[in-house]
C-alpha cells in the first residue's frame, strides 16, 4: 500500500514537471483558431500543423535568431573556459602577493545584482560602439560568469596532485606548458560543468541582449520570442513553436547535465 502511495506521489510530481512541455508541444501544432478557442487543451483539434515551425523558422526569421544565439553562447563558453581556467590555475598553484584580494574581489562580483550595473554597462558599451554587435553581447556575459567559474576551477585545480606539477618542472616544462598540456586536460569534468551552466545561462539570457541590441537581425532566440509576444495579434501556436525551437538545444544538453550539476554544486558544500 505504502509502495503505491509512493509511486502516486512521484507520478503526480512528474506530471507537473512534464505538463508545461506537453502543452508547449501541443499548442505549437494547433491552428491559430484552435489555440485561441481551446487554450486549456494540450492536444490539437485537427491534424498537427507542422507548418507552424516553417512559418516561425523562415518567415519570422528564427533561423537568424538561432544563429545569433549559437554564436553568442559558443563564444561565451569559450571565453569563460579559457580566461577562468587560467585564473583558477594561478590561484591554485602559485604563491604571490595580493592573491587573496584578487580572488575575493572577483567572488564578490557574484553578489551585485545584474540590474544594478546595467545602466553604466549600457553606457560603457555604447561609448565603445558595441551596441548591436556580438562582442557587445558576449563580453559582459563572460565577465558575469567570472565568480562561479573562478571558484570552481580554483577548487578543482587544488584537488590535482601537486607532485604532477613538480615532476613536470623536473622534465623542463614551463608553467604555461604545464597549464596547457597537463592541468587543462585534467580539468575536463569541471570544464564540462562550467560549459553547460554557461550554455544554459547565455542561451536564456534576455536582460542584457535586450538592452544592447535593438536591430532585429541581431536578436537572439529569447528576444525573438518577445518580439512574437509583442505583436498586436498574438498567435499562441507560433509563440509556442518558437519556444520549442528555443528549448530544444537545451534539452539536448540534458544527458550531460545531471551528473555535472550535482558534482559542481557539491564541490562547494564540502567546504562548509
Amino acid at each position, binding site marked *: 500500500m505504502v509502495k503505491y502511495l*509512493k*509511486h502516486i506521489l*512521484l507520478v503526480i*510530481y*512528474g506530471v507537473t*514537471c512534464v505538463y*508545461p*512541455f506537453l*502543452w*508547449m508541444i501541443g499548442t505549437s501544432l494547433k491552428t491559430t483558431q484552435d489555440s485561441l478557442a481551446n487554450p*486549456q*487543451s494540450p492536444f490539437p483539434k485537427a491534424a498537427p500543423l507542422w507548418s507552424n515551425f516553417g512559418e516561425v523558422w523562415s518567415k519570422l526569421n528564427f533561423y537568424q535568431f538561432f544563429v545569433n544565439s549559437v554564436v553568442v553562447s559558443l563564444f561565451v563558453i569559450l571565453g569563460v573556459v579559457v*580566461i*577562468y581556467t*587560467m*585564473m583558477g590555475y*594561478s590561484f591554485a*598553484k*602559485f604563491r*604571490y602577493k595580493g*592573491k*587573496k584580494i584578487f580572488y575575493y574581489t*572577483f*567572488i*564578490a562580483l557574484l*553578489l*551585485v*545584482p*545584474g*540590474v*544594478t*550595473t*546595467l*545602466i*553604466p554597462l549600457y553606457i*560603457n558599451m555604447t561609448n565603445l560602439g558595441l551596441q548591436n554587435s556580438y562582442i557587445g553581447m558576449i563580453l559582459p556575459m563572460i*565577465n558575469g560568469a*567570472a*565568480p562561479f567559474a*573562478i*571558484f570552481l576551477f*580554483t*577548487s578543482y585545480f587544488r584537488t590535482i596532485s601537486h607532485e604532477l606539477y613538480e615532476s613536470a618542472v623536473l622534465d623542463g616544462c614551463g*608553467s604555461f606548458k604545464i597549464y596547457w598540456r597537463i592541468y587543462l586536460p585534467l580539468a575536463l569534468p569541471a570544464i564540462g560543468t562550467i560549459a553547460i551552466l554557461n550554455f*544554459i545561462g547565455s542561451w*536564456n539570457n534576455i536582460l542584457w541582449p535586450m538592452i544592447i541590441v535593438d536591430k532585429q537581425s541581431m536578436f537572439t532566440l*529569447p528576444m525573438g*520570442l518577445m518580439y512574437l*509576444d509583442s505583436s498586436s495579434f498574438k498567435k499562441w501556436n507560433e509563440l*509556442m513553436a518558437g*519556444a520549442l525551437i528555443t528549448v530544444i538545444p537545451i534539452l539536448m544538453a540534458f544527458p550531460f*547535465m545531471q551528473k555535472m*550539476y*550535482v558534482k559542481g*554544486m*557539491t564541490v*562547494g*558544500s564540502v*567546504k*562548509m
Partner: protein
Amino acid sequence: MVTTKNKWVPYLFLLPGVLLFLGVGVYSVGFSILLSFYNWSGIDFSTARFEGLANFRQFLLGDDPIVTQNFYKALLHNALIAVFQVVIVVPAALVLAFTLQNTKMAAMYRTVYFLPMIASGVAIFYVWKGLFEPAGALNALFQWIGLDFLVIPGGMLGSSSTSLMGIILTTIWGGLPGTLILYYAGLTSIDPTLYEAASVDGASKTTLIRKITWPLLKPITLIAVIQMINGAFQTFENVFIMTGGGPGGSSEVIGTLVYRTAFLDNDYGLASAIGWVSFLVTGVIAIFSIRSFQADI
C-alpha cells in the same frame, strides 16, 4: 603551492580576466555608484546634476511617496518570493528525495524531475503565461476537479491579488528540482553499512536520522537556501515576461522596478540608487554566500 622564478608569471595568468573586469566590471560598478548621487536622464553626462542623497531620500524616506511605496512594495515581493520558496521547496524536496530513495525506477523519475530545472527560462515563462490565461489549463483543471473557488476569472496573472502567487508558483516549479536532486545525491551517498552498524549498536530510528542523515543534509540545505534567497532577490526574467510587474504593480520586484525606472522613465540616478540599496539589503545573505565560496588558496 609554488613561488615561480619569474614573479610576474602568476599575474600573467590573471591578466585576461582582470582586463575584462577593468573594461566591463569596474567601470560599471564605479560609475553606477557615482550615478546614484546624480539626477540624470541619459545621453550626455554633462547634463547630470549632483544631488547628494536626494535619490536615496526620494525612495527610502518618502520624499516622493509614490516612489517610496513602489520600492517597499517591490522589496516585500522579493522577500515573499524568497520566504515562500524556501518554506515550500525545502520540505517538499526532502519528502520527494526520501520517497525517491530506494524506489524502483528512481533514475527515470529523476530524469523527468530534472526537466524544469534546465529548461526554466524565457521560453518556459511564455508557456506559464499561456497556462495561467483566463481560459487556460490551470483554471480548467480547478473547474474540472470541482475546486471552483480556485478558479480566477481574470487568470492568475491577470488579477492583482494573485499575480505574485503565479510568479511564486513558477519559481517553485523551476527551483524545486535542483534542491531535490542535491538532497537525493546526498541521501544516496550515505554508506548503508553506517545505518546497519548503528542499528546493531542499538540506535533508534530518530537517532539514525539525527546523527547520520541530518549532518549530511545540513550543508546541502544551507547551500540550497542561500541560493534560493539570492535568486529571489535577483528575480527579473519571469516577472518581466509574465506580468511586467503588473497588474498595478502587484507583482513588481526590485529588478523590474530598476529596469522601469532606468529604461522607461529614464531616471538613471534614481534607478542606480535603488539598485545599490537592494544590494545592501541582500548584503547579509551575501556574507553567507561568500563563506560558501571560500576556496583553499
